[in-house]
C-alpha cells in the first residue's frame, strides 16, 4: 500500500487536511522541543534535529553542547512517544467505535486498560525483575502491562463468542461490550486488592496508573512506532469493510465482507495498539474516545478518512497536552489526569450540545 494509493483512495479535502495536520504536527514538535526548563530557540532545535538526521556535525557549531543532549536525548523521545501514543490511541478508538457500532466506545472498552493496569500492578508490587541479566529492569512493568492487556482481550473475546453467534452473528457488539465491562470490573477489584497489599509501593502503582511520558526514551519511540504504523496499515486496509459493517453484519456479509474475520482482525489490531500505548505510558483516558468522535464531525463517518485524520489529530493533541504539563504548567501533572480533566468536561459539553440540537451522538 503505497502513499500514492493512499492519497487516491481518500478524497482531496482529506488529503489537504492530512497535509495541514502534518505541517502542524511538525511545527508542534519543533516548538515543544524548544520549550521547557531551559528554552532553546527554534532555529537551534531545527539545526540539532537536522544534524542528527544528516550526520552533519557542522550545524552544531557555536551551540551549547548541552542543548543537543536536552533536545535529542531528553525531550525528543518524550515528545515523539507522546505523539505516537496519541496517534495510536486515536486509531484504536476509531476502530473500536467502528467494530462495536458505538460512537462512544474507546480503546479501553474491552478492558484492555484494566488488564494492563493489573499486569503493571503485579510487576510493581512483587518487584519483578524479568530482565535483570539483559536489559535494564524498567522493562518488566511494560511487559507485564502488555501481557495483562492481551490476556484480558482474549478472555473477553472468549467470553463474548457463543456457539450460535459464531455462525450467525459473529461477535456481537453487545456481547463484547458487556464482557469487557464485567472483566474490567473484576480486574479493578483485583487492582484495589493489590494496592491494599502494596504498602510502600502503592504510590508507584498509583503514579503508573495515572500515566506519564516523563521516563520515555528512544526504545519507547521505536516500539510504539512499530506497532502504531503496523496497526494503522491494517486498520486502513480494512477501513472500507469497517464502513460496510456499520450497516450490520448481515448486510455487510451480503456485500462481500467476511465479518467474523474482519471483526477479529481489527479487534486484535486495535487492542494491540492500545496495549502497547498503555504499556509505555500508563492509562491515558479520553484521547481514544474524543479524538475520533470530534474528527468524525469534520470527515464524516467514512473510516478511510476518519482513521488517518484521527491519527494526526490524536498525535497533535496528546503532544500539546504533554508539552502543557511538562513545559507550561508550574509543576508536572500526570498526563492521564490532565487529559481526563480537559477531555471529560469537553466531552460533556459536546454531548449535551448534540442532545439539545437533537442530532444524537
Amino acid at each position, binding site marked *: *500500500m503505497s502513499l500514492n494509493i493512499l492519497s487516491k483512495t481518500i478524497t482531496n479535502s482529506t488529503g489537504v487536511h492530512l497535509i495541514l495536520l502534518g505541517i502542524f504536527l511538525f511545527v508542534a514538535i519543533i516548538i515543544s522541543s524548544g520549550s521547557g526548563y531551559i528554552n532553546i530557540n527554534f532555529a537551534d532545535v531545527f539545526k540539532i534535529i537536522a544534524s542528527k538526521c544528516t550526520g552533519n556535525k557542522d550545524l552544531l557549531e557555536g551551540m551549547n553542547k548541552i542543548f543537543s543532549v536536552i533536545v535529542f536525548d531528553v525531550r525528543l523521545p518524550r515528545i515523539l512517544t507522546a505523539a505516537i501514543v496519541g496517534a495510536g490511541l486515536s486509531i484504536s478508538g476509531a476502530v473500536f467505535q467502528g467494530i462495536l457500532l458505538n*460512537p462512544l466506545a474507546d480503546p479501553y472498552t474491552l478492558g484492555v486498560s484494566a488488564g494492563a493496569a493489573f499486569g503493571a500492578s503485579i510487576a510493581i508490587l512483587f518487584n519483578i525483575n524479568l530482565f535483570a541479566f539483559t536489559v535494564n529492569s524498567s522493562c518488566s512493568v511494560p511487559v507485564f502491562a502488555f501481557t495483562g492487556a492481551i490476556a484480558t482481550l482474549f478472555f473477553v473475546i472468549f467470553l463474548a463468542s457463543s456457539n450460535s453467534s459464531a*455462525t*450467525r452473528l459473529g461477535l456481537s457488539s453487545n456481547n463484547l461490550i458487556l464482557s469487557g465491562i464485567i472483566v474490567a470490573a473484576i480486574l479493578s477489584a483485583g487492582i484495589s486488592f493489590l494496592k491494599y497489599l502494596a504498602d510502600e509501593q502503592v504510590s508507584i502503582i498509583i503514579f503508573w496508573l495515572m500515566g506519564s511520558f516523563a521516563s520515555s526514551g528512544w526504545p519507547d519511540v521505536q516500539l510504539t512506532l512499530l506497532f502504531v504504523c503496523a496497526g494503522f496499515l491494517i486498520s486502513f486496509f480494512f477501513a472500507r469493510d469497517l*464502513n460496510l459493517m*456499520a450497516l450490520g453484519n*448481515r448486510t455487510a456479509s*451480503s*456485500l462481500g465482507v467476511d465479518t467474523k474475520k474482519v471483526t477479529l482482525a481489527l479487534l486484535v489490531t486495535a487492542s494491540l495498539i492500545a496495549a502497547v500505548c498503555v504499556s509505555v505510558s500508563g492509562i491515558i483516558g479520553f484521547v481514544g474516545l474524543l479524538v475520533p468522535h470530534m474528527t468524525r464531525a469534520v470527515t464524516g463517518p467514512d473510516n478511510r478518512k476518519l482513521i488517518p485524520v484521527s491519527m494526526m489529530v490524536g498525535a497533535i493533541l496528546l503532544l500539546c497536552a504533554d508539552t502543557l504539563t511538562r513545559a507550561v504548567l508550574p509543576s508536572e501533572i500526570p498526563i492521564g489526569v490532565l487529559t481526563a480533566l480537559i477531555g471529560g468536561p469537553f466531552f460533556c459539553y459536546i454531548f449535551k450540545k448534540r442532545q439539545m440540537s437533537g*442530532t444524537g451522538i
Partner: protein
Amino acid sequence: MGFQIKKMSFSYGDNKVIDNVSLHIEPGRFYGIIGPNGCGKSTFLDLLSSHTKPAAGSVFFMGKDLAKYSKKALSRLIALVPQNFYINFSFTAREIVLMGRYPHIPKFSVPAQQDMEIIDDVMQKTETYQFKNRFITELSGGERQRVVFARALAQDTDVLILDEATSNFDINHSIRMLNLAARGVEKNGKTVITVLQDINLAAIFCEYLIFIKNGRIAAYGKTNEVLNANTIKSVFNVDAKVYQDSYSNSKQVVFKR
C-alpha cells in the same frame, strides 16, 4: 440453474429452525415466501445468501455449492435487503447507496463515472435522490428503508433477496419498490425472492409462493394454484376466502373477525 436446495437443515442449539427442506428455485422468477412469525423465513434467506451455513444438506447455486463461493464473488451475484436496518453513524444517503457498488470497485480505487451514474439512476427510481445528501440517521424509517433498497439495486446482482423489505413502506412505495424488483425480473431475467407479510401484495407480484411452517415447506407452487383457503388454514390456522380478483388480475384473500 437457480438454487438447488437438497435436504437442508439448520438449528439454533436444540431448536430446529429449518428442517430437511428440498426445493428448486428457478432463475428469472419472482418468488414470495409466506409463513407465520418465527417459522424460519429469515433463516431460510440467510441460508440462501450464504450468511449462514446449513447444518445438514446443501444449497447449490448456478450448479455450484454455495459454500464454495467466495464472499466477494457471491456479493456480485446475490443482494440482500434486510428486515430491520439500524445505523449509528451519520453516513449520507448517497454514501450508503454507493456502498452497494463496493463489490464492483476494487478496495483501493475511487468509484468510476459508471458507478456514480448507476447510483444516481437507482436513487431516482427509488425516490431517494431528493435527500441524497441528508444523513441516514435523520431519515424516517420508510425513507431509510428506501435507501437500503436502492443500495441493494445498485449492487446490480442476478438475485435480489428481500426480507420483509417493504415493512416500513406506505402502500404507494410498497407497490413502487416491488414494481422495480418485478421489472428486473421481466426485463433482465433477474430472480427475486421476497418474504412478505401481506399475502395480497405477494399474490399480485409473485409468480411462485413458498409457504413455510415450523421450518418445513408447507406448500409450494404457482401462486394461482397454491394460494387457496386450505393452504391459509393449514399455515396460519385462520379462515379465509380466496377469490380471483379482476381488478388486480390475481388471487386475493379476505378475512373475517
